Protein backbone atom coordinates (compact mmCIF):
# COMPACT_ATOMS: atom_id res chain seq x y z
CA UNK A 1 0.00 0.00 0.00
CA UNK A 2 1.35 3.39 -0.98
CA UNK A 3 1.89 6.15 1.54
CA UNK A 4 -1.02 8.50 2.24
CA UNK A 5 -0.61 12.13 1.18
CA UNK A 6 0.22 14.10 4.31
CA UNK A 7 -1.68 17.27 3.41
CA UNK A 8 -5.14 15.63 3.31
CA UNK A 9 -7.79 14.69 5.83
CA UNK A 10 -9.72 11.42 5.59
CA UNK A 11 -13.09 9.95 6.55
CA UNK A 12 -14.23 6.52 7.66
CA UNK A 13 -16.12 6.29 4.32
CA UNK A 14 -12.73 6.41 2.54
CA UNK A 15 -13.01 9.93 1.21
CA UNK A 16 -10.27 12.51 1.33
CA UNK A 17 -10.50 16.33 1.73
CA UNK A 18 -8.04 19.06 0.98
CA UNK A 19 -8.53 22.57 2.34
CA UNK A 20 -7.57 24.97 -0.47
CA UNK A 21 -6.10 28.44 0.01
CA UNK A 22 -9.37 30.11 -1.01
CA UNK A 23 -11.27 28.36 1.78
CA UNK A 24 -12.92 25.77 -0.45
CA UNK A 25 -12.50 22.02 0.10
CA UNK A 26 -11.68 19.48 -2.61
CA UNK A 27 -13.07 15.97 -2.12
CA UNK A 28 -12.24 12.60 -3.64
CA UNK A 29 -12.07 8.93 -2.71
CA UNK A 30 -8.94 7.31 -1.32
CA UNK A 31 -6.59 4.90 -3.01
CA UNK A 32 -7.94 2.20 -0.71
CA UNK A 33 -11.47 2.92 -1.92
CA UNK A 34 -10.63 2.86 -5.63
CA UNK A 35 -8.62 -0.31 -5.15
CA UNK A 36 -11.50 -2.03 -3.34
CA UNK A 37 -14.00 -0.95 -6.01
CA UNK A 38 -11.90 -2.01 -8.99
CA UNK A 39 -12.05 -0.38 -12.41
CA UNK A 40 -14.51 2.51 -12.32
CA UNK A 41 -16.95 2.73 -15.21
CA UNK A 42 -19.35 5.49 -14.22
CA UNK A 43 -19.46 8.49 -11.91
CA UNK A 44 -22.69 10.30 -11.10
CA UNK A 45 -21.77 13.85 -10.14
CA UNK A 46 -23.88 16.38 -8.23
CA UNK A 47 -24.98 19.68 -9.79
CA UNK A 48 -22.89 22.76 -9.16
CA UNK A 49 -24.82 24.83 -6.61
CA UNK A 50 -26.24 21.79 -4.84
CA UNK A 51 -26.20 22.18 -1.05
CA UNK A 52 -25.32 19.09 0.93
CA UNK A 53 -25.19 18.16 4.59
CA UNK A 54 -22.19 16.39 6.09
CA UNK A 55 -22.84 12.65 5.75
CA UNK A 56 -25.37 13.08 2.94
CA UNK A 57 -25.12 11.28 -0.40
CA UNK A 58 -23.32 13.50 -2.85
CA UNK A 59 -22.11 11.37 -5.76
CA UNK A 60 -22.10 7.76 -6.88
CA UNK A 61 -19.08 5.89 -8.18
CA UNK A 62 -19.75 2.68 -10.02
CA UNK A 63 -17.13 0.10 -10.77
CA UNK A 64 -17.30 -3.08 -12.80
CA UNK A 65 -18.22 -4.68 -9.47
CA UNK A 66 -20.60 -2.40 -7.59
CA UNK A 67 -22.11 1.02 -7.04
CA UNK A 68 -20.89 2.99 -4.06
CA UNK A 69 -22.18 6.25 -2.61
CA UNK A 70 -19.81 9.11 -1.99
CA UNK A 71 -20.87 11.03 1.12
CA UNK A 72 -20.29 14.70 1.72
CA UNK A 73 -17.53 14.92 4.34
CA UNK A 74 -18.61 18.44 5.27
CA UNK A 75 -21.72 20.57 4.93
CA UNK A 76 -21.73 23.19 2.23
CA UNK A 77 -22.29 24.02 -1.40
CA UNK A 78 -20.85 22.25 -4.40
CA UNK A 79 -18.91 24.92 -6.31
CA UNK A 80 -17.19 22.75 -8.93
CA UNK A 81 -17.38 19.18 -10.17
CA UNK A 82 -14.72 17.23 -12.06
CA UNK A 83 -16.63 16.94 -15.34
CA UNK A 84 -13.84 14.95 -16.96
CA UNK A 85 -14.91 11.97 -14.87
CA UNK A 86 -18.15 11.65 -16.83
CA UNK A 87 -16.18 10.40 -19.83
CA UNK A 88 -13.12 9.12 -18.06
CA UNK A 89 -14.05 7.61 -14.68
CA UNK A 90 -10.86 5.57 -14.67
CA UNK A 91 -8.97 8.73 -13.72
CA UNK A 92 -10.03 7.95 -10.17
CA UNK A 93 -8.25 4.61 -10.41
CA UNK A 94 -5.16 6.15 -11.97
CA UNK A 95 -4.80 9.20 -9.72
CA UNK A 96 -7.26 9.19 -6.82
CA UNK A 97 -5.60 12.10 -4.97
CA UNK A 98 -4.94 14.26 -8.04
CA UNK A 99 -6.73 14.18 -11.43
CA UNK A 100 -9.36 11.90 -9.93
CA UNK A 101 -10.78 14.51 -7.55
CA UNK A 102 -14.60 14.52 -7.54
CA UNK A 103 -16.02 17.82 -6.23
CA UNK A 104 -14.96 21.11 -4.71
CA UNK A 105 -17.18 22.51 -1.95
CA UNK A 106 -17.58 25.78 -0.12
CA UNK A 107 -18.01 24.84 3.55
CA UNK A 108 -21.05 26.15 5.41
CA UNK A 109 -22.27 24.77 8.69
CA UNK A 110 -21.07 21.67 10.44
CA UNK A 111 -18.12 19.55 9.38
CA UNK A 112 -18.20 15.78 9.62
CA UNK A 113 -15.58 13.81 11.47
CA UNK A 114 -12.21 13.52 9.80
CA UNK A 115 -8.95 11.76 10.45
CA UNK A 116 -5.34 12.77 10.04
CA UNK A 117 -3.18 10.64 7.70
CA UNK A 118 -1.80 8.70 10.68
CA UNK A 119 -5.27 8.11 12.09
CA UNK A 120 -6.60 6.95 8.71
CA UNK A 121 -3.62 4.65 8.24
CA UNK A 122 -4.37 3.09 11.65
CA UNK A 123 -8.05 2.80 10.59
CA UNK A 124 -7.00 0.94 7.40
CA UNK A 125 -4.64 -1.32 9.33
CA UNK A 126 -7.52 -2.25 11.64
CA UNK A 127 -9.70 -3.10 8.65
CA UNK A 128 -7.14 -5.51 7.34
CA UNK A 129 -6.94 -7.50 10.61
Amino acid sequence: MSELPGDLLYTSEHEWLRREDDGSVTVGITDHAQNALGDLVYVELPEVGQVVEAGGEMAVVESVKAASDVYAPISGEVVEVNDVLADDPERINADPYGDGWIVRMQPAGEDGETMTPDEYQAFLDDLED
Partner: protein
Amino acid sequence: MGMKTPLHDSHVAAGARIVDFGGWDMPLHYGSQLEEHHAVRRKAGVFDVSHMTVVDVSGSDAEAYLRRLLANDVAKLTKPGKALYSCMLNERGGVVDDLITYYLGPERYRVVVNASTRDKDLQWMERHTAGYEVEVVERSELAMLAVQGPEARQLAAHVIDDEWRDAALALKPFFGPELCLQFVVPTGYTGEAGSDINAPADDAVDAWASCLAAGISPCGLGARDTLRLEAGMNLYGNDMDEDTSPLEAGLGWTIAWEPDDRDFVGREALAAKRDDPKRRRFAGLLLEGKGVLRGHMRVIVDGAGEGEVTSGGFSPTLERSIAMARLPAGDYERAKVEIRKDLRDARVVGLPFVRKGKPQIEL
Protein backbone atom coordinates in the same frame (compact mmCIF):
# COMPACT_ATOMS: atom_id res chain seq x y z
CA MET B 1 -9.53 -18.94 5.20
CA GLY B 2 -11.34 -20.44 2.26
CA MET B 3 -10.62 -23.47 0.11
CA LYS B 4 -7.76 -22.99 -2.31
CA THR B 5 -7.28 -24.33 -5.82
CA PRO B 6 -3.90 -25.87 -6.79
CA LEU B 7 -3.17 -22.60 -8.60
CA HIS B 8 -3.54 -20.38 -5.56
CA ASP B 9 0.19 -19.62 -5.22
CA SER B 10 0.36 -18.90 -8.95
CA HIS B 11 -2.44 -16.34 -8.57
CA VAL B 12 -0.74 -14.61 -5.68
CA ALA B 13 2.53 -14.55 -7.61
CA ALA B 14 0.70 -12.93 -10.56
CA GLY B 15 -0.57 -10.16 -8.28
CA ALA B 16 -4.15 -11.36 -7.89
CA ARG B 17 -6.65 -9.66 -5.68
CA ILE B 18 -8.15 -12.68 -3.90
CA VAL B 19 -11.80 -12.72 -2.82
CA ASP B 20 -14.12 -15.26 -1.26
CA PHE B 21 -16.32 -16.95 -3.84
CA GLY B 22 -18.69 -19.49 -2.31
CA GLY B 23 -16.09 -20.61 0.20
CA TRP B 24 -13.21 -20.56 -2.28
CA ASP B 25 -10.32 -18.08 -2.30
CA MET B 26 -10.40 -17.02 -5.94
CA PRO B 27 -8.73 -14.28 -8.02
CA LEU B 28 -11.07 -11.36 -8.75
CA HIS B 29 -8.52 -9.69 -11.02
CA TYR B 30 -4.78 -9.30 -11.41
CA GLY B 31 -4.73 -5.50 -11.59
CA SER B 32 -7.38 -4.42 -14.08
CA GLN B 33 -10.59 -6.30 -14.75
CA LEU B 34 -11.21 -4.18 -17.86
CA GLU B 35 -7.85 -5.06 -19.39
CA GLU B 36 -8.47 -8.74 -18.71
CA HIS B 37 -11.86 -8.46 -20.38
CA HIS B 38 -10.34 -6.89 -23.50
CA ALA B 39 -7.53 -9.46 -23.56
CA VAL B 40 -10.10 -12.25 -23.93
CA ARG B 41 -12.02 -10.39 -26.66
CA ARG B 42 -8.91 -9.43 -28.59
CA LYS B 43 -6.31 -12.11 -27.92
CA ALA B 44 -6.50 -14.74 -25.17
CA GLY B 45 -7.00 -15.12 -21.43
CA VAL B 46 -6.77 -18.03 -19.01
CA PHE B 47 -9.12 -18.58 -16.08
CA ASP B 48 -8.68 -20.89 -13.13
CA VAL B 49 -12.02 -22.67 -12.83
CA SER B 50 -10.79 -25.41 -10.53
CA HIS B 51 -13.41 -24.47 -7.95
CA MET B 52 -16.04 -26.00 -10.22
CA THR B 53 -17.12 -29.54 -9.48
CA VAL B 54 -15.98 -32.30 -11.83
CA VAL B 55 -18.00 -35.51 -11.77
CA ASP B 56 -17.31 -38.59 -13.88
CA VAL B 57 -20.27 -40.72 -14.90
CA SER B 58 -19.43 -44.17 -16.21
CA GLY B 59 -20.97 -47.57 -16.68
CA SER B 60 -23.06 -49.48 -19.19
CA ASP B 61 -26.10 -47.28 -18.42
CA ALA B 62 -24.20 -43.98 -18.33
CA GLU B 63 -25.90 -42.68 -21.45
CA ALA B 64 -29.39 -43.81 -20.42
CA TYR B 65 -28.88 -42.28 -16.97
CA LEU B 66 -27.82 -38.89 -18.35
CA ARG B 67 -30.66 -38.95 -20.87
CA ARG B 68 -33.04 -39.27 -17.92
CA LEU B 69 -31.19 -36.75 -15.71
CA LEU B 70 -30.67 -33.89 -18.20
CA ALA B 71 -33.04 -31.75 -20.27
CA ASN B 72 -30.61 -31.74 -23.19
CA ASP B 73 -29.88 -35.06 -24.86
CA VAL B 74 -26.38 -36.56 -24.48
CA ALA B 75 -27.19 -38.87 -27.40
CA LYS B 76 -26.09 -35.85 -29.48
CA LEU B 77 -22.56 -36.52 -28.25
CA THR B 78 -20.92 -39.05 -30.51
CA LYS B 79 -17.30 -37.93 -30.75
CA PRO B 80 -14.92 -38.09 -27.77
CA GLY B 81 -14.11 -34.60 -26.49
CA LYS B 82 -17.41 -33.09 -27.59
CA ALA B 83 -19.37 -31.16 -24.99
CA LEU B 84 -23.03 -30.37 -24.41
CA TYR B 85 -24.55 -27.64 -22.27
CA SER B 86 -27.67 -28.64 -20.36
CA CYS B 87 -29.92 -27.93 -17.42
CA MET B 88 -30.62 -30.53 -14.76
CA LEU B 89 -34.26 -30.02 -13.78
CA ASN B 90 -36.42 -30.91 -10.81
CA GLU B 91 -39.86 -32.47 -11.24
CA ARG B 92 -41.42 -28.98 -11.36
CA GLY B 93 -39.29 -28.06 -14.35
CA GLY B 94 -37.13 -25.72 -12.24
CA VAL B 95 -33.37 -25.68 -12.68
CA VAL B 96 -31.36 -27.67 -10.13
CA ASP B 97 -28.20 -26.57 -11.92
CA ASP B 98 -26.77 -25.89 -15.35
CA LEU B 99 -23.78 -27.94 -16.42
CA ILE B 100 -21.49 -29.09 -19.20
CA THR B 101 -21.23 -32.76 -20.15
CA TYR B 102 -18.15 -33.96 -22.05
CA TYR B 103 -18.20 -37.24 -23.89
CA LEU B 104 -14.97 -39.07 -23.02
CA GLY B 105 -15.72 -42.30 -24.83
CA PRO B 106 -18.20 -45.18 -24.83
CA GLU B 107 -19.91 -45.37 -21.41
CA ARG B 108 -17.78 -42.51 -20.04
CA TYR B 109 -18.89 -38.93 -19.51
CA ARG B 110 -17.51 -36.02 -17.53
CA VAL B 111 -19.97 -33.56 -16.03
CA VAL B 112 -18.90 -30.13 -14.70
CA VAL B 113 -21.35 -28.47 -12.31
CA ASN B 114 -21.25 -25.21 -10.39
CA ALA B 115 -19.17 -24.91 -7.23
CA SER B 116 -21.94 -23.20 -5.26
CA THR B 117 -24.37 -26.08 -5.88
CA ARG B 118 -21.89 -28.94 -5.39
CA ASP B 119 -23.55 -30.67 -2.43
CA LYS B 120 -27.10 -30.64 -3.70
CA ASP B 121 -25.98 -31.61 -7.22
CA LEU B 122 -24.02 -34.62 -5.99
CA GLN B 123 -26.97 -35.74 -3.87
CA TRP B 124 -29.38 -35.23 -6.75
CA MET B 125 -27.16 -37.15 -9.17
CA GLU B 126 -26.62 -39.98 -6.68
CA ARG B 127 -30.34 -40.22 -5.94
CA HIS B 128 -31.19 -40.68 -9.60
CA THR B 129 -28.75 -43.56 -10.15
CA ALA B 130 -31.37 -46.01 -8.78
CA GLY B 131 -32.09 -48.62 -11.43
CA TYR B 132 -29.09 -47.69 -13.60
CA GLU B 133 -25.80 -49.52 -14.02
CA VAL B 134 -23.78 -46.37 -13.45
CA GLU B 135 -21.07 -44.94 -11.24
CA VAL B 136 -20.99 -41.25 -10.27
CA VAL B 137 -17.57 -40.21 -8.94
CA GLU B 138 -16.41 -36.71 -8.01
CA ARG B 139 -12.93 -35.88 -9.33
CA SER B 140 -11.93 -33.26 -6.79
CA GLU B 141 -8.22 -33.90 -7.51
CA LEU B 142 -8.56 -32.35 -10.96
CA ALA B 143 -7.83 -28.71 -11.62
CA MET B 144 -9.43 -26.92 -14.55
CA LEU B 145 -8.22 -24.10 -16.77
CA ALA B 146 -10.36 -22.33 -19.34
CA VAL B 147 -8.37 -20.64 -22.11
CA GLN B 148 -10.56 -18.27 -24.12
CA GLY B 149 -10.16 -15.75 -26.90
CA PRO B 150 -9.60 -15.52 -30.65
CA GLU B 151 -5.97 -16.66 -30.30
CA ALA B 152 -6.60 -19.02 -27.37
CA ARG B 153 -6.44 -22.28 -29.20
CA GLN B 154 -3.37 -21.39 -31.16
CA LEU B 155 -1.50 -20.07 -28.11
CA ALA B 156 -2.70 -22.84 -25.80
CA ALA B 157 -1.59 -25.42 -28.32
CA HIS B 158 1.94 -24.21 -27.70
CA VAL B 159 1.72 -24.81 -23.97
CA ILE B 160 1.48 -28.52 -24.59
CA ASP B 161 3.85 -30.88 -26.41
CA ASP B 162 4.40 -30.62 -30.16
CA GLU B 163 2.99 -34.01 -30.97
CA TRP B 164 -0.33 -33.07 -29.43
CA ARG B 165 -0.49 -29.63 -30.95
CA ASP B 166 -1.53 -30.73 -34.41
CA ALA B 167 -4.36 -32.81 -33.03
CA ALA B 168 -5.62 -29.89 -30.95
CA LEU B 169 -5.46 -27.48 -33.86
CA ALA B 170 -7.25 -29.95 -36.12
CA LEU B 171 -10.33 -29.47 -33.96
CA LYS B 172 -9.92 -32.84 -32.37
CA PRO B 173 -9.97 -33.44 -28.66
CA PHE B 174 -6.59 -33.89 -27.19
CA PHE B 175 -5.88 -36.78 -24.88
CA GLY B 176 -2.63 -36.42 -23.03
CA PRO B 177 -1.16 -38.73 -20.45
CA GLU B 178 -3.48 -40.24 -17.86
CA LEU B 179 -5.90 -37.63 -16.48
CA CYS B 180 -4.58 -34.71 -18.53
CA LEU B 181 -7.27 -33.68 -21.00
CA GLN B 182 -7.79 -30.75 -23.27
CA PHE B 183 -11.15 -30.09 -24.88
CA VAL B 184 -11.76 -27.82 -27.82
CA VAL B 185 -14.48 -25.29 -27.02
CA PRO B 186 -16.22 -23.71 -30.04
CA THR B 187 -17.93 -21.05 -27.89
CA GLY B 188 -17.09 -20.85 -24.20
CA TYR B 189 -18.65 -19.04 -21.26
CA THR B 190 -17.09 -15.81 -22.49
CA GLY B 191 -18.57 -16.02 -25.99
CA GLU B 192 -15.12 -16.75 -27.42
CA ALA B 193 -13.60 -19.97 -28.67
CA GLY B 194 -10.92 -21.72 -26.71
CA SER B 195 -10.07 -24.85 -24.85
CA ASP B 196 -10.70 -26.39 -21.45
CA ILE B 197 -7.82 -28.15 -19.74
CA ASN B 198 -8.42 -30.74 -17.00
CA ALA B 199 -5.30 -31.80 -15.15
CA PRO B 200 -3.99 -33.01 -11.80
CA ALA B 201 -2.62 -30.28 -9.54
CA ASP B 202 1.08 -30.37 -10.57
CA ASP B 203 0.35 -30.51 -14.27
CA ALA B 204 -2.16 -27.68 -13.92
CA VAL B 205 0.45 -25.44 -12.29
CA ASP B 206 2.79 -26.16 -15.23
CA ALA B 207 0.03 -25.56 -17.78
CA TRP B 208 -0.87 -22.25 -16.12
CA ALA B 209 2.77 -21.10 -16.20
CA SER B 210 3.06 -22.15 -19.86
CA CYS B 211 -0.07 -20.19 -20.72
CA LEU B 212 1.34 -17.03 -19.16
CA ALA B 213 4.69 -17.59 -20.88
CA ALA B 214 2.85 -17.96 -24.20
CA GLY B 215 1.33 -14.48 -23.79
CA ILE B 216 -2.07 -15.54 -22.51
CA SER B 217 -3.35 -13.07 -19.87
CA PRO B 218 -4.34 -14.37 -16.45
CA CYS B 219 -8.00 -13.41 -15.92
CA GLY B 220 -10.08 -13.34 -12.77
CA LEU B 221 -13.70 -13.91 -11.88
CA GLY B 222 -14.50 -10.23 -12.46
CA ALA B 223 -13.71 -10.38 -16.17
CA ARG B 224 -15.38 -13.79 -16.37
CA ASP B 225 -18.61 -12.15 -15.22
CA THR B 226 -18.56 -9.16 -17.61
CA LEU B 227 -17.58 -11.46 -20.48
CA ARG B 228 -20.36 -13.95 -19.83
CA LEU B 229 -22.87 -11.10 -19.46
CA GLU B 230 -21.90 -9.73 -22.87
CA ALA B 231 -22.10 -13.27 -24.25
CA GLY B 232 -25.62 -13.66 -22.86
CA MET B 233 -24.58 -16.69 -20.80
CA ASN B 234 -26.64 -17.42 -17.72
CA LEU B 235 -25.28 -17.53 -14.19
CA TYR B 236 -26.98 -20.03 -11.91
CA GLY B 237 -28.59 -18.35 -8.90
CA ASN B 238 -28.83 -15.02 -10.74
CA ASP B 239 -30.59 -15.79 -13.99
CA MET B 240 -32.29 -19.04 -13.04
CA ASP B 241 -32.88 -21.24 -10.02
CA GLU B 242 -35.06 -24.10 -8.77
CA ASP B 243 -38.21 -22.02 -9.20
CA THR B 244 -37.41 -20.87 -12.73
CA SER B 245 -37.84 -23.04 -15.79
CA PRO B 246 -35.28 -22.89 -18.58
CA LEU B 247 -38.09 -21.55 -20.77
CA GLU B 248 -38.17 -18.39 -18.64
CA ALA B 249 -34.40 -18.06 -18.55
CA GLY B 250 -33.61 -17.92 -22.26
CA LEU B 251 -32.57 -21.57 -22.21
CA GLY B 252 -35.35 -23.06 -24.33
CA TRP B 253 -32.72 -23.98 -26.91
CA THR B 254 -31.09 -26.39 -24.44
CA ILE B 255 -34.21 -28.53 -24.06
CA ALA B 256 -34.20 -31.54 -26.39
CA TRP B 257 -37.90 -32.27 -26.94
CA GLU B 258 -37.09 -34.87 -29.60
CA PRO B 259 -37.32 -37.80 -29.42
CA ASP B 260 -40.66 -37.26 -27.73
CA ASP B 261 -40.51 -40.52 -25.81
CA ARG B 262 -37.39 -39.51 -23.88
CA ASP B 263 -38.67 -39.09 -20.34
CA PHE B 264 -36.22 -36.66 -18.72
CA VAL B 265 -36.80 -35.34 -15.20
CA GLY B 266 -39.06 -32.29 -15.35
CA ARG B 267 -40.33 -32.97 -18.86
CA GLU B 268 -44.01 -33.11 -17.92
CA ALA B 269 -44.00 -29.85 -15.96
CA LEU B 270 -42.01 -28.14 -18.69
CA ALA B 271 -44.30 -29.33 -21.48
CA ALA B 272 -47.23 -27.69 -19.70
CA LYS B 273 -45.40 -24.33 -19.75
CA ARG B 274 -44.22 -24.64 -23.33
CA ASP B 275 -47.15 -22.88 -24.99
CA ASP B 276 -48.18 -20.65 -22.09
CA PRO B 277 -48.90 -17.21 -23.62
CA LYS B 278 -48.29 -15.55 -20.26
CA ARG B 279 -44.84 -17.04 -19.90
CA ARG B 280 -42.34 -14.41 -18.83
CA ARG B 281 -39.90 -13.22 -21.40
CA PHE B 282 -36.13 -13.34 -20.97
CA ALA B 283 -34.24 -10.69 -22.90
CA GLY B 284 -31.35 -8.30 -22.93
CA LEU B 285 -31.54 -4.64 -21.86
CA LEU B 286 -29.35 -1.88 -23.19
CA LEU B 287 -29.34 1.24 -21.05
CA GLU B 288 -29.69 4.29 -23.28
CA GLY B 289 -28.08 6.86 -21.04
CA LYS B 290 -25.37 6.80 -18.40
CA GLY B 291 -25.48 4.58 -15.37
CA VAL B 292 -25.06 0.91 -14.60
CA LEU B 293 -27.78 -1.75 -14.51
CA ARG B 294 -27.46 -4.17 -11.61
CA GLY B 295 -29.15 -7.41 -10.56
CA HIS B 296 -32.62 -7.12 -8.95
CA MET B 297 -33.38 -3.67 -10.35
CA ARG B 298 -37.05 -3.18 -11.14
CA VAL B 299 -38.04 -3.04 -14.81
CA ILE B 300 -41.26 -1.36 -15.90
CA VAL B 301 -42.86 -1.94 -19.30
CA ASP B 302 -45.72 0.35 -20.25
CA GLY B 303 -48.89 -1.65 -20.74
CA ALA B 304 -47.22 -5.01 -20.04
CA GLY B 305 -46.25 -4.98 -16.37
CA GLU B 306 -43.07 -5.32 -14.36
CA GLY B 307 -39.97 -7.43 -14.48
CA GLU B 308 -36.55 -7.65 -12.91
CA VAL B 309 -32.92 -7.45 -13.94
CA THR B 310 -31.37 -10.86 -13.28
CA SER B 311 -27.78 -9.89 -14.16
CA GLY B 312 -26.50 -6.47 -15.01
CA GLY B 313 -23.31 -4.54 -15.36
CA PHE B 314 -21.07 -2.52 -17.59
CA SER B 315 -20.09 -3.86 -20.98
CA PRO B 316 -16.44 -2.98 -21.64
CA THR B 317 -16.84 -3.91 -25.33
CA LEU B 318 -19.93 -1.76 -25.95
CA GLU B 319 -18.97 0.86 -23.33
CA ARG B 320 -22.59 0.86 -22.22
CA SER B 321 -24.51 -0.76 -19.43
CA ILE B 322 -26.24 -4.01 -20.33
CA ALA B 323 -28.37 -6.55 -18.48
CA MET B 324 -30.32 -9.74 -18.77
CA ALA B 325 -33.85 -9.48 -17.42
CA ARG B 326 -36.97 -11.51 -16.80
CA LEU B 327 -39.83 -9.45 -18.22
CA PRO B 328 -43.58 -9.61 -18.61
CA ALA B 329 -44.98 -11.43 -21.64
CA GLY B 330 -45.57 -9.29 -24.70
CA ASP B 331 -44.06 -7.81 -27.80
CA TYR B 332 -42.30 -4.54 -27.01
CA GLU B 333 -38.93 -2.94 -27.55
CA ARG B 334 -38.64 -0.44 -24.74
CA ALA B 335 -38.61 -0.56 -20.96
CA LYS B 336 -37.72 1.62 -18.01
CA VAL B 337 -35.37 0.56 -15.26
CA GLU B 338 -35.44 1.99 -11.77
CA ILE B 339 -31.96 3.15 -10.81
CA ARG B 340 -31.77 4.84 -7.43
CA LYS B 341 -35.47 5.82 -7.56
CA ASP B 342 -35.03 7.29 -11.02
CA LEU B 343 -36.66 5.69 -14.09
CA ARG B 344 -34.23 5.37 -16.99
CA ASP B 345 -34.84 4.35 -20.58
CA ALA B 346 -33.62 1.02 -21.85
CA ARG B 347 -33.99 -0.88 -25.10
CA VAL B 348 -35.13 -4.48 -25.02
CA VAL B 349 -32.75 -6.46 -27.22
CA GLY B 350 -31.98 -10.04 -28.18
CA LEU B 351 -29.08 -11.95 -26.68
CA PRO B 352 -26.13 -12.14 -26.91
CA PHE B 353 -24.69 -8.64 -26.87
CA VAL B 354 -21.23 -9.72 -28.05
CA ARG B 355 -19.97 -12.91 -29.62
CA LYS B 356 -16.53 -13.77 -30.99
CA GLY B 357 -15.34 -10.23 -30.44
CA LYS B 358 -18.17 -8.62 -32.41
CA PRO B 359 -21.13 -6.60 -31.10
CA GLN B 360 -24.40 -8.35 -31.97
CA ILE B 361 -26.69 -5.39 -31.40
CA GLU B 362 -26.82 -1.89 -32.80
CA LEU B 363 -26.05 0.84 -30.31
